[in-house]
């Protein structure tokens, strides 16, 4: 497909003019990146798909004001982070009014993916590992999850992570250290 080779700038220009194919190409290009942020923060749930869709809808609404001072990737990630944080806040409010909030944390997932990493070519095992990482991520505090998603999974620098989450650099490092500790607890024997 020709659009695969088209630059972001050209796709944006075409999408601004109402070209649906260009907008679709942007969605296809950044779908995985947005999934990494949103599912990393919310877990693999129906809301994550909704939030993922909303990321692109919000982007489309602001497409005329987007001036490419930041890369499209960073811009979409920012929207994804903000919407994910909003969703987490909503969840927290909902949990206060439901009995499920009294359920103890699910401690049944004690399998460790460590040995399975030895054979990463096995698709089934990889899916298992992904699932275990997701479960471990689901269990850590959302603030820590946001930091670990951006810093260690997405690969942003500590400063970029601090800028995106609008927190001091020192807070990113301390949250990262705590997140790392918690994740290790859930992932390692």
């Amino acid at each position, binding site marked *: 497909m020709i659009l695969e080779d088209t630059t972001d700038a050209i796709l944006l220009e075409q999408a601004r003019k109402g070209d*649906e194919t260009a*907008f*679709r190409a942007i*969605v*296809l290009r950044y*779908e*995985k990146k947005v*999934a*990494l942020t949103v*599912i*990393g923060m919310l877990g*693999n749930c129906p809301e*994550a*798909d909704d939030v*993922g*869709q909303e990321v*692109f*809808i919000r982007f*489309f609404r602001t497409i005329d004001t987007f001036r490419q001072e930041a890369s499209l990737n960073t811009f979409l990630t920012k929207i994804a982070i903000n919407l994910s944080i909003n969703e987490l806040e909503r969840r927290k409010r909902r949990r206060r009014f439901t009995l499920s909030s009294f359920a103890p944390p699910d401690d049944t997932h004690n399998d460790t*993916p*460590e040995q399975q*990493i030895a054979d*990463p070519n096995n698709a089934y095992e*990889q899916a298992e*590992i*992904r699932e275990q*990482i*997701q479960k471990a991520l689901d269990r850590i505090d959302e603030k820590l999850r946001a930091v670990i998603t951006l*810093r*260690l*999974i997405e*690969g942003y*620098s*500590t400063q970029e992570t601090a800028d995106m989450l609008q927190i001091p*650099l*020192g807070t990113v*490092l*301390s949250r*990262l*250290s*705590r997140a*790392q*500790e918690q*994740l*290790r607890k859930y*992932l*390692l024997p």
Partner: protein
Amino acid sequence: MTTLPPDSYELLLRATDTPDNLSDEERQYVQQQLQTQTDWQAEYARLAQLRTQLQHYQPQFAPNFADRVLNRQKSAQLTAITKLMLLWFPRVAAAAACVGLFFALHTYLHEGTISIETITGNYISDEYNEESDWDEYIYESL
């Protein structure tokens, strides 16, 4: 929690990110610390292990995600139009009612009635009918 000071922890993070991006001085310092300091060694090993595990993490949305986004975009646009109509309707409706009332009053004052005929313009007043009769009479007498 790490036992390393924030600066060292950040340096170690960058060392496990992209070691090539470290300056020569930083690289030397990290190597030296890793050779001599057990807390650095332990932290490095933990970070490296976690990173290896996280590399396998590649979440994806359900298939046909782009289709769902585009469908939602279209329905969002329709909702926006509906919202705009709802926003403007009370204002337009009030103005239109005033205009309608004015024309109705105008029609009533001129025609003495506001029947459907007068509003639609099909009404012929008696006065006009009388004139028509006279015209017909004159025409026939010629």
